[in-house]
């Protein structure tokens, strides 16, 4: 029935627990987390010190060893590797699993038809842009009169749409699952964790000397560099978040559009591309994290 293209830049709400809204990307990342935890518990229950490990143990050892060597090649110090490795490996595995779950059959296509009315904009050809989740929540609670919603849609879409249809009543399709990292909330959270961990590691290794990276009163030049470093830290948060979000969300849009135009055979190379992009983006996030951790723990004397 839904022969229209459904692309929404923010994750839609599928359930509410009190005042907390559960979005579809939150559900998918919960599934990814539970898969990871289940795998870890399974390996742990079967862990044996033997020369002929079982398949599961072999797989886990391969993954852990590859990631450990990767971290060690950047830090060149066993003590720092042991400290950074859990967080970095978790970043890699969590982001990888979230990216790949977005390609799984059923994610994005299985959903519920909700009957709330909310302003929709009809673009040419039949691309249906969902309004941000905030507005649909307002409509769910307030059930505001359709006239103002229609005007709001016209005002917003004035520059973009060629044909505005005001309020669109009828069932709207809300996907039940959506890639966890295709939601800006998840990626901003991951970026915040990474940057805050950088500062924490810096303080742990250099104690208060770490502040000399940002407040350096030796001469005006280093003071200016300190200010730039502060701005760089905030830019890192934005950069981490948008790099991951942009790659995965753009991949989702690409797959949706291709599947909408030519459903057979043509999406295959794009699925391959998306699998590779998922691996590369997870690797880049983890690698950049470990590089920044390492740079934060090296003392700032070599300038």
């Amino acid at each position, binding site marked *: 029935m839904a022969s229209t293209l459904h*692309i*929404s*830049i923010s994750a839609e709400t599928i359930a509410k627990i009190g005042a907390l809204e559960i979005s579809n990307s939150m559900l998918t990342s919960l599934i990814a987390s539970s898969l990871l935890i289940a795998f870890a518990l399974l390996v742990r229950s079967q862990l044996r010190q033997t020369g002929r490990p079982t398949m599961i143990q072999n797989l886990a050892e391969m993954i852990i060893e590859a990631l450990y060597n990767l971290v060690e*090649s*950047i830090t060149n110090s066993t003590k720092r590797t042991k400290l950074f490795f859990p967080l970095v490996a978790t970043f890699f595995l969590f982001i990888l699993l979230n990216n790949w779950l977005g390609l799984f059959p059923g994610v994005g296509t299985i959903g519920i038809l909700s009957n709330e009315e909310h302003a929709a904009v009809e673009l040419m050809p039949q*691309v249906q*842009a969902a309004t*941000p989740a905030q507005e649909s929540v307002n409509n769910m609670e307030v059930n505001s009169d359709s006239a103002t919603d229609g005007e709001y849609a016209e005002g*917003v879409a004035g*520059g*973009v749409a060629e044909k505005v249809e005001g309020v669109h009543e009828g069932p709207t399709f809300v996907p039940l699952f959506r890639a966890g990292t295709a939601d800006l909330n998840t990626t901003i959270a991951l970026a915040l964790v990474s940057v805050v961990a950088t500062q924490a590691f810096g303080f742990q290794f250099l104690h208060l000397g770490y502040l000399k990276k940002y407040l350096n009163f030796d001469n005006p030049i280093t003071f200016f560099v300190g200010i730039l470093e502060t701005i760089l830290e905030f830019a890192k948060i934005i*950069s981490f978040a*948008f*790099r991951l*979000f*942009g*790659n995965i*969300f*753009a991949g989702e*849009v690409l797959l949706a559009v291709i599947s909408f135009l030519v459903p057979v055979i043509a999406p295959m190379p794009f699925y391959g591309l998306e699998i590779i992009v998922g691996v*590369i983006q997870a*690797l*880049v996030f983890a*690698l*950049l994290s470990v*590089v920044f951790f390492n740079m934060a723990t090296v003392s700032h004397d070599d300038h």
Partner: protein
Amino acid sequence: MTPEFSIAMTMALGGFGPALAIGILVAKGLEAIGRNPEAASKIQTNMILGAAFAEAIAIYSLVVALILKFV
């Protein structure tokens, strides 16, 4: 200038710089590997890292284009 045109130009101009940057980066990386094949894996890791930084700029312009189109 129609809205679709501005969206397309956002992506076109925003992708030009990063594409050039990644090209130069990978060229230098390959040259370095050619000179010193033993350090290939270290060079490759840093090359991928640099390419990810450069690609992030293209992704920013992609996000702007997507927001313009769908919001």
